[in-house]
């Protein structure tokens, strides 16, 4: 049959690669013959040949002695695919289309293998294929593809490089853990692959960031879905540990990526992952020095970096939708009616299950609240630069009153979510950390709350404790705020009703 013929040809290819170097002339001749003899002459034959080769390679893996060379066929297939990425004439289809076709074929073979009843699915050969493609590509692209002698092809490949990585990412997104749990561990391993992750982070103009964020969010969504209150399965626990380790790696090498994308990550991170939250928000830009956050005499006004605007890669304005108008209008000219619109708009239409610390569902649109808070912070920072810091470090400014009124009129849940979002902005020394520290401290000591005062104080303290009680790291800004609250003259934490009610908290505070 046609398929059997393809099996034979592919087997010859595998044998050839075991006998000569991959850049040997014989290899090029073999590929040329494949095209000339109609094995790879058009899309249909390409698809049929590659499908047969994938299936054969997977079969070969499954049938191999596990202690022996299990990847010989899949290694050869990856080499074939990469070579064809370079040497083809690309008449019937473009290089972009070719890559898409290959990944499509793989996805089809993969899906069937994973979903079939009585499946013998094993993620390893698929992982190996992806890993090899990354290795081969990495080897090719060194010094702007200098190994490619044909200058025209070299130029094309340089332009194609970006498409390569982003297409790879988009297909990885298709086989995310929620869709294919049998590939979960391979998924994180690929996401963090040494030939993928740093390259996505380093692509020019941050062009890999968006797709990389999508993948990390895929992982978080999977974890969120299966992190319940009543015990986590061992497998999920291991997935979490791997995710944590990868994020720590990113924080070490590319803290700016976590810093600029923190907003999207906070939206997707499971609510009870306090330490991972802290790790992400504790990322520090490489050149910044951190003043001692426990220093009682610390004055952010005197720290230069506290005037700097942190870069925000994903503009929260996008998530405001119709909310943008009333919020921006209020910031320009505050009015009660605008405030009413904002307050009424933060509630969801229906409850949503959410396994949080001390709650099981939410009735507030968390994403919207976070967008409002960050947007206000961004605008405040810009205002400070445009006019003066006095314009925003002022309890009468519209930036402050918008948040104040939201808390004053909102339910306990709204208060909790708004304060949680504000506290997420307490990070490394920058204008957002500076301003939100001012806002939270002011709110904590304000007499404007009336009867609501103790609840506001309790929620602020609760949020601080959720971040501080956790094992390190702790974001600099959170520690600074906490230190400032501990040393207040006008409010004694130990005499607060909410503290006295919980002896454990009272004891911790006494020690501190």
């Amino acid at each position, binding site marked *: 049959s046609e398929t059997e013929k393809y099996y034979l040809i592919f087997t010859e290819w595998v044998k050839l690669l075991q006998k000569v170097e991959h850049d040997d002339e014989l290899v090029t001749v073999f590929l040329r013959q494949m095209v000339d003899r109609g094995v790879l002459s058009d899309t*249909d034959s390409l698809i049929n040949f590659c*499908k047969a080769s994938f299936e054969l390679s997977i079969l070969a893996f499954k049938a191999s002695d596990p202690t022996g060379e299990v990847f010989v066929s899949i290694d050869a297939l990856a080499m074939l695919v990469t070579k064809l990425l370079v040497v083809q004439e690309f008449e019937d289809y473009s290089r972009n289309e070719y890559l898409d076709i290959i990944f499509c074929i793989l996805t089809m073979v993969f899906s069937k293998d994973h979903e079939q009843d009585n499946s013998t699915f094993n993620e390893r050969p698929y992982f*190996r294929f992806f890993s*090899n493609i990354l290795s081969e590509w990495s080897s090719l692209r060194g010094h702007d593809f200098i190994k490619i002698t044909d200058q025209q092809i070299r130029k094309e490949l340089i332009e194609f490089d970006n498409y390569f990585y982003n297409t790879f990412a988009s297909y990885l997104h298709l086989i995310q853990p929620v869709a294919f749990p049998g590939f979960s561990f391979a998924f994180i391993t690929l996401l963090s*692959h*040494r030939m993928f992750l740093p390259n996505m982070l380093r692509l020019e103009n941050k062009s890999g960031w968006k797709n990389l964020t999508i993948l990390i969010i895929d992982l978080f969504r999977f974890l969120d879905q299966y992190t319940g209150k009543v015990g986590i399965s061992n497998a999920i626990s291991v997935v979490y540990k791997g995710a944590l380790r990868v994020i720590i790696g990113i924080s070490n090498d590319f803290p700016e990526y976590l810093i600029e994308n923190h907003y999207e990550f906070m939206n997707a991170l499971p609510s009870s992952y306090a330490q991972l939250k802290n790790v992400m928000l504790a990322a520090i830009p490489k050149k910044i020095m951190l003043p001692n956050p426990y220093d009682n005499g610390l004055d952010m006004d005197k720290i230069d970096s506290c005037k700097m605007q942190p870069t925000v890669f994903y503009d929260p304005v996008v998530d405001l939708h119709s909310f943008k108008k009333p919020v921006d209008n209020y910031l320009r000219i505050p009015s009660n009616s605008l405030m009413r619109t904002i307050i009424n708009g933060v509630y969801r239409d229906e409850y949503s299950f959410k396994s949080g610390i001390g709650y099981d569902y939410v009735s507030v649109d968390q994403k919207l609240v976070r967008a409002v808070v960050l947007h206000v912070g961004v605008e405040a920072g810009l205002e400070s630069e445009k006019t003066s810091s006095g314009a925003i470090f002022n309890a009468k400014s519209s930036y402050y009153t918008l948040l104040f009124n939201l808390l004053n009129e909102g339910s306990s849940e709204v208060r909790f979510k708004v304060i949680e979002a504000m506290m997420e902005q307490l990070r490394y020394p920058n204008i957002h950390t500076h301003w939100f520290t001012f806002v939270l401290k002011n709110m904590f000591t304000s007499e404007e709350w009336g009867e609501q005062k103790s609840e506001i104080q309790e929620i602020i303290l609760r949020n601080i404790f959720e971040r501080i009680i956790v094992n390190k790291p702790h974001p600099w800004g959170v520690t600074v705020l906490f230190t400032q609250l501990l040393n207040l003259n006008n409010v004694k934490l130990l005499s607060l009703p909410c503290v006295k009610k919980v002896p454990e908290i009272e004891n911790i505070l006494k020690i501190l």
Partner: protein
Amino acid sequence: QHKAFKNPLFSEELKYWLDSKRPLMQPYKEMPDRMVSQLESSLLNCPDSLDADTPYLYRNPLSLPHPTSIFFPSEPIRFVSPVDSPQLQQQQNTGSNESIKSEDDKKESKPSTTHDIYSRTSLAKTFSKFDLDTLFFIFYHYQGTYEQFLVARELAKHRNWKFNKINRNWYYKEVTKSPPGMQQAEEETWRYFDYQNSWLARRCNSDFKYNEEDFEKL
């Protein structure tokens, strides 16, 4: 009814792919049994660092493992190096083991100041302990390999040898203090490693002129 399902190339597999969309649109509240076993299977088959390593289908005959005693480990040399003890770290900072080196070697090695991505790998650390003979052997007989690359890095960055693109020799500039009374305070002599004939480092004759263009910028 969609056209894609009529395509004989994909029609069989497409329905499986489509099935996977369901949990994406409506995630399960609790993991169904099938999913639990799939996840556990994934944990069991988790790819490790060997799976993620660079593939090599064709093995250079020189690099094939030689038969050794069964008591010797057969694991790849790229083991993860143990925790850097303070002594080891200091050794790393001040240059390799002084005691086993000759006078010439001592002059050649400089403190290891390279902080690139290779500096902390066990192979790079191991190569920093090799003598010149071994380094040149690897360089000339394992061409195009990662080992050759690391050896070139060791020679260039730590031993201060330079690679001539034209004749493919490695060169070393020796600077010695002239005896007092000489016109120049320092004397410069060049040596090269003769890989083609004698397999020795030889002095360049007096008409050797260093031309920067001829040397690879490593």
